[in-house]
């Protein structure tokens, strides 16, 4: 995945609450065996109405999405993260996310920024007026051209992975010996777990 340190540009003032991953990418788009091209189906039911923010030329190519509480709830489909990435979005700002979605986002180089609702309201206003927003991962800040400066928290491991564009599988494989030690211990203590489908 591509490393990420700063995302700067227009933001899509979406803001809806409890947006589930069926809304982000409906099931009919999950029949693919690739990660590419899902932007076409992203937010399909919302984009069916004419005056939607996603197709508004004012936000064309915007790299930031402003969303509401509990964004990405429901299905675990990583296709939701792939679809958002395919739209060119590299940072989402919302008061909260579902646990699975925020994990999927990070694994695909999308930064899920958590900020309180009053900040979201302010950023929605800035975005609607067509101003740019800057998300700085290194310094954990979101700024606007109007002296707004909001700091956000992020898990240090997630930050490390995003900044470095790191592949978690490679990181974990560095601990192969520890995994083997764990497996040896378990296969003697709980052989019935270790047997799996080989029973």
């Amino acid at each position, binding site marked *: 995945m591509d490393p990420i340190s700063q995302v700067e540009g227009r933001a899509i003032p979406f803001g809806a609450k*409890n947006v589930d991953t069926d809304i982000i990418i409906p099931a009919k788009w999950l029949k693919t065996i690739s990660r590419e091209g899902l932007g076409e189906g992203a937010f399909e039911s919302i984009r069916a109405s004419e005056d939607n923010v996603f197709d508004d030329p004012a936000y064309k190519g915007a790299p930031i999405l402003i969303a509401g509480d*509990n964004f990405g709830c*429901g299905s675990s*489909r990583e296709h939701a993260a792939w679809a958002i990435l395919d739209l060119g979005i590299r940072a989402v700002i919302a008061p909260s996310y579902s646990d699975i979605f925020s994990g999927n986002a990070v694994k695909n180089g999308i930064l899920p920024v958590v900020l309180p609702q009053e900040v979201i309201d302010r950023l929605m206003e800035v975005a609607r007026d067509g101003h740019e927003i800057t998300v700085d991962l290194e310094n954990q800040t979101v700024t606007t051209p109007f002296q707004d400066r909001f700091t956000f928290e992020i898990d240090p*491991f997630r930050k490390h992975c995003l900044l470095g564009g790191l592949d978690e599988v490679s990181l974990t494989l560095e601990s192969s010996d*520890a995994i083997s030690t764990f497996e040896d211990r378990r296969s003697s203590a709980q052989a*019935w777990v270790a047997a799996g489908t080989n*029973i």
Partner: protein
Amino acid sequence: MASKPRTLYDKIWDDHVVETRDDGTAIIYIDRHLVHEVTSPQAFEALRLAGRSVRRPELTLAVPDHNLPTTARRDAAGSKVPIEDPQSAAQLAALERNAPDFGIRYIGDADAEQGIVHVVGPEQGFSLPGTTIVCGDSHTASHGGLGALAFGIGTSEVEHVLATQTLLLQRSKSMEVRVDGELGPGVTAKDLILHIIGVIGAAGGTGHVIEYRGRVFEEMSVEQRLTVCNMSIEAGARAGLIAPDETVFRYLKGRPMSPKGAAWDHAVAYWNTLRTDEGAQFDKSVTIDAADVAPTVTWGTSPEDVLPITGTVPSPDSFADPSKQAAAAKSLDYMGLTPGTPMTEIAIENVFIGSCTNSRIEDLRDAAKVLKGRKKADNVRWAIVVPGSGLVKRQAEEEGLDRIFTDAGFEWREPGCSACLGMNPDKVPAGERCASTSNRNFVGRQGPGARTHLVSPAMAAAAAVAGKLTDVRELTE
């Protein structure tokens, strides 16, 4: 030194820590991995591209379910009926190829054991108490009903588990949902979990693992516990747990992949230690009185939008939170409902009994009990029953349940995810309403424009008979 009292979640977590990093991230060992056709192709492809193998193929079980049509899989001559949708066919073919390529046990559509992964796992004894279980599907939470730490993962994590048999995780917070008292007649596990989601909200469990505690859960069958834990994710919790007990042990004993002989006794001894210690602290606690739970239905497009069947469609003004008011107005518009309408006056055209929430044998028995000697109403255009697995189907047929359903005007189908999620031919048409035993009433979930009301199997059956949402207690008393 007395050790600090621990929750059930703490115990399972502690037993699976391979390594903890300085930043608190832990490498957690994964004991059981279920794979289906939708969220795995990109993971297998990534392994191929990186030249990686599957670390422990015997800990993964592959079963197709989401895309499979639920109509007959063999024609009169016994040949396989081809799958019409080329994309679905390609995805199913990918799993059928990937599983043997990577040495993974595959239960295919031609096998009697095939079904929805979350039905097959417990049924085969693959899912066991105290294990960590993952699947690229958020309803993996189901397996918590056996006392396993089970949760849904994304495709990158599927790849991570295949390659390393572990996941990098942060410890979740713990939440206790205690239900005191007894459930009334006609009130099922499904009604209870819908009610719980209504109380804690669709995001109430975010960041938490829920443990369901109290006599109500202890008295539940395994099937009912799986239903409760299944919908933990609808309250935002990635996992839900119920402490394993004799009911679980009896359920698992003798299943194909359950421990055998001396290993069984060792396993039971360990499983008996898996309960929250006296004095253990939860980060959050919610207490519910079982007597407050009625047969429950959803009115909106979030699973938190629940009402007792005796209720009326709410007005957006009735919510205090302005964002909830806006969401409610949008939901009512999508659902085509007018505030003040009694729930029992909402006519339905479709009934779906199935999904990983409610497609086990007890669910089918519950529905059949209501339908016996009755017929679906004329305005119900489409009514289907989709057993959760081939084994559930066979059992139901042995009990004659299939005849009760077909006599009542239902279609009796082959196992799969079916009309829960609009990925296979079973869909609800735009603008039509469905009384559904599935888990999500999201916009477009059962098909673009489809209107879903989540209910229990008995309530779905009652709705079919009445042609509208109905209080099942009026048909059974």
